């Protein structure tokens, strides 16, 4: 019998707002435990939440970018459960009136296009983190992450393969990063995916019983977890057992999932409207303003790079993997008018430097004006390719001024033809054997003489000038 895998995703993304959703604490990642906290986010008695409106704005933008309807009358609800990382013992979330509904994200897998439905997107707050101390054999709580704003993006069960899931997550990640609403770093937990998976005989109309997998923190692991879980469920059914509706945890080290808790005796979250927050009404103007502030999405940039700037599809794709690179490309091109040159410098040099320096691509700074200057000098032949790379590396590392750096290091090409002439004469004098070979028709000898001349000039001469003068001198011998 052949089987079909049916998958739906719940993706949590931490929003890149400066402050938390209900207080003014910073959302910055890291920090010593319990230093990014206040009475509000640590849930002391008597405190009250106040909504950070940037969260609503980011949610609207995300909804618009994923073709959702925006809910005009929004409310928050409380989801009640006990856990030490949840200081109020309830999470403020949206159950009844989520901010976005009925959207879709279009993906492409192996040339096949597919639309993945978005069931809803809602706003909520993140919980803290439990840290186990193996020496003391105790567990401590770090509330820094408590109250960091989250969007939960719930898809329809539209996926049929791991490839589709990964294509969707990549598209979502790219969209959110371009919108500036999240940095989507799976390893830092700012993007997390829960995978709901079931299997059914191919062609069946009914869905099978699903399991939910949590704790998967890389795209690669998601692919492996899906393969494992689908296989496990099929084996269960083929052995005559049934799949139990439960939450399973992905164990990265064992490459397997194991049961966390059964949904059959599921927790009752006792949702009810959050009385401490007023309903949020989203006006047409608010939506229009959000629309006007939305930057160009990556796919539109790629199309434009190919059709208007003459880049290859491959180059366009590489440049748009990081929004910071795409923006650097655009800004620099606008200043020097050499898209291909800018692209080559970014893909060839900058990406290598980023990898070597082990900095995140969204944390680097390269001045587009200075970068454009370097490219202009190269194109005009004032510096050679090696010098271009050297200056650019210095720009990346120390933000040097290109012209003074070139002068200081003597990287400028020679414009003194007299010096080239005298050097050529010297080379001819010192290499009688090669002259003979040249005269005898050996073209290789000419190349050798050019090389000797360039070496004597430390590579700073224009090769065309050297060629021309050498040819004239040899021919006149």
């Amino acid at each position, binding site marked *: 019998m052949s089987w079909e895998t049916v998958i739906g995703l719940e993706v949590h993304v931490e929003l890149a707002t400066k402050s938390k959703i209900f207080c003014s604490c910073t959302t910055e990642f890291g920090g010593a435990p319990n230093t990014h906290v206040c009475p509000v986010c640590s849930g002391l*008695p008597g*405190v009250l939440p106040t909504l950070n409106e940037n969260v609503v704005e980011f949610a609207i933008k995300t909804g618009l970018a994923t073709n959702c309807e925006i809910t005009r009358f929004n409310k928050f609800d409380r989801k009640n459960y006990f856990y030490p990382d949840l*200081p109020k*013992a309830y999470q403020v979330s949206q159950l009844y009136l989520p901010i976005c509904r009925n959207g879709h994200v279009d993906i492409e897998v192996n040339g096949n296009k597919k639309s993945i439905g978005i069931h809803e997107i809602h706003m909520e707050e993140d919980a803290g983190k439990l840290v186990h101390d193996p020496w003391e054999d105790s567990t401590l709580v770090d509330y820094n992450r408590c109250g960091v704003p989250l969007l939960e993006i719930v898809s329809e069960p539209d996926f049929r393969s791991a490839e589709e899931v990964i294509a969707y997550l990549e598209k979502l990640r790219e969209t959110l990063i371009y919108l500036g609403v999240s940095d989507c770093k799976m390893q830092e937990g700012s993007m997390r995916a829960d995978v709901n998976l079931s299997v059914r005989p191919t062609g069946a109309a009914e869905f099978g019983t699903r399991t939910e997998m949590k704790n998967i923190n890389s795209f690669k692991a998601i692919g492996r977890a899906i393969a494992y879980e689908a296989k496990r469920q099929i084996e269960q059914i083929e052995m005559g057992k049934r799949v139990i509706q439960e939450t399973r945890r992905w164990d990265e080290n064992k490459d397997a999932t194991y049961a966390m808790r059964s949904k059959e005796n599921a927790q009752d979250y006792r949702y009810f409207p959050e009385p401490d927050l007023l309903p949020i009404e989203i006006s047409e103007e608010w939506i229009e303003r959000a629309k006007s502030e939305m930057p160009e999405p990556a796919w539109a940039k790629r199309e434009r790079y190919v059709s208007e700037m003459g880049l290859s599809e491959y180059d366009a794709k590489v440049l748009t993997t990081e929004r910071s690179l795409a923006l650097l490309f655009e800004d620099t091109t606008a200043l020097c008018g050499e898209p291909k040159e800018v692209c080559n410098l970014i893909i060839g040099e900058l990406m290598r430097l980023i990898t070597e320096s082990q900095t995140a691509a969204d944390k680097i700074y390269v001045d587009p004006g200075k970068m454009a200057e370097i490219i202009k000098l190269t194109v005009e032949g004032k510096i050679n390719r090696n010098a271009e790379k050297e200056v650019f590396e210095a720009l990346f590392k120390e933000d040097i001024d290109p012209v003074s750096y070139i002068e200081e290091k003597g990287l400028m090409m020679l414009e003194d033809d007299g010096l080239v002439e005298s050097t050529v004469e010297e080379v001819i004098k010192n290499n009688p054997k090669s002259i003979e070979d040249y005269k005898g028709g050996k073209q290789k000898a000419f190349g050798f003489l050019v090389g000797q001349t360039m070496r004597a000039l430390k590579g700073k001469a224009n090769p065309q000038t050297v060629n021309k003068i050498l040819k004239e001198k040899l021919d006149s011998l």
Partner: protein
Amino acid sequence: MELYDKTALEIGRMIKNKDISCREAAKAYIENIKAKDGELNSFVTVLEEEGLKQADEVQKRLDLGEELSPLAGVPMAIKDNICTKDVLTSCSSKMLYNFKPPYNACAVEKIEAAGAVVLGKTNMDEFAMGGSTETSYYGATKNPYDYERVPGGSSGGSAAAVGAGLVPYALGSDTGGSIRQPCSFCGVSGIKPTYGGVSRYGLVAFASSLDQIGPIGKDVRDCAEILSVISGHDRRDSTSVKGFEYDFSDSFDGSVKGLKIGIPTNFYGEGLNEDVKTSVLGAAKLLKDMGAELYEFEMPVVDYAVPAYYIIACAEASSNLSRYDGIKYGYRSNEGESLLDVFVNSRSEGFGMEVKRRIMLGSFVLSSGYYDAYYKKGLQTRALIKKSFNEAFEKCDMIISPVAPTTAFKIGENITDPLKMYLGDIYTVAVNLAGIPAVSVPCGFDGKGLPVGLQLIGQTFSEAKLVKAAYAYQQNTDWHKRAFEKMKGGSL
């Protein structure tokens, strides 16, 4: 006349005129607390040193010519569910027996900025759940008129302390009558402000959509002054109303001419003590004689207020009190092996019976399968009650009603019968469900010599009008003063 007989504004004037220093005033009241509170038990925490220090600081500000409120230098007390920086805020619960907040409630910030001298934190029903102050972890507060009886609740400590002359005024909180009912039982005056009038920031939540902080004083003029100080928008409380300020400048002309006062006849039926009924209707007649118009009508939906209130209040409480889990602060049980044990044992040992009863009720009405049958119905009833008040206020300026169906009952008399206790809230809870204001003032004594209170209920933000009527009433009666004299001849 002794200092203890004076109103807060009178003491404020004496301080301003340098008839008495802030320290002298504070000292006199601290002496009174020391002498009487051992038995009365109206305080959880007395701030003797801190109070005297604060009195000196206020004196210094006054001596430097700083323009402070008419309450500057006047001693006062704060209910123990209102957060005071570095001072125990226990909510009279074992659960918070050691909790000292790192911040002040908004109302505390405001009253201190106005020059208040805080002499302590007052006893209350545990987490404000109760109408007798008997559910306190620190033991019951007694009624200053009769030590065998309860002071009402949940702000029983505040009302008893004001009634006994231990402080000229106090802050309380009112979720379903917790300011008005103890005022009625202790012969003092109080205001339950419009929801959103006073910031809830720093008020330890019982039922977020119903809770309000309000004043308790010797007369309604004091209460109006206190309310002007503690009210106003606070950006830390999203439910505090923007762009509104109380203006009591027209409230003290002593006139009720032309005011239309509604009497909901179904409030005066079965279950209402005859003495209470006679006193309240007597007050209505007096107001009529003073120039007000009376208007009789029916408000049948209010009969559903008690069940709707207990569903909504308990639902919110079950969530609000979930944070007390023994992990971060407050009481933690030493028993148990697992995380679940820590939660269960800490909460089982840390909360009292009444709090547990309400948490269970609230968890039940919110649980899946029951939400629609209870919580949703509660919300629908609440909307109908609000509508019914709106309709009433199209026909009258305010409503006059008893505060409680009885006068102060005996300690232990109702504690084992929660239903009877809950029915005592019949006249007060509808006001909280509707989010509207009410003023509670003394209006007589029953056959046993216990005070009776009435309440005037008005439309949203009509406090100035309610105060105007209550003030005129107090100008023409001396219940609020006689109450005090009577008490002195009695137990104290």
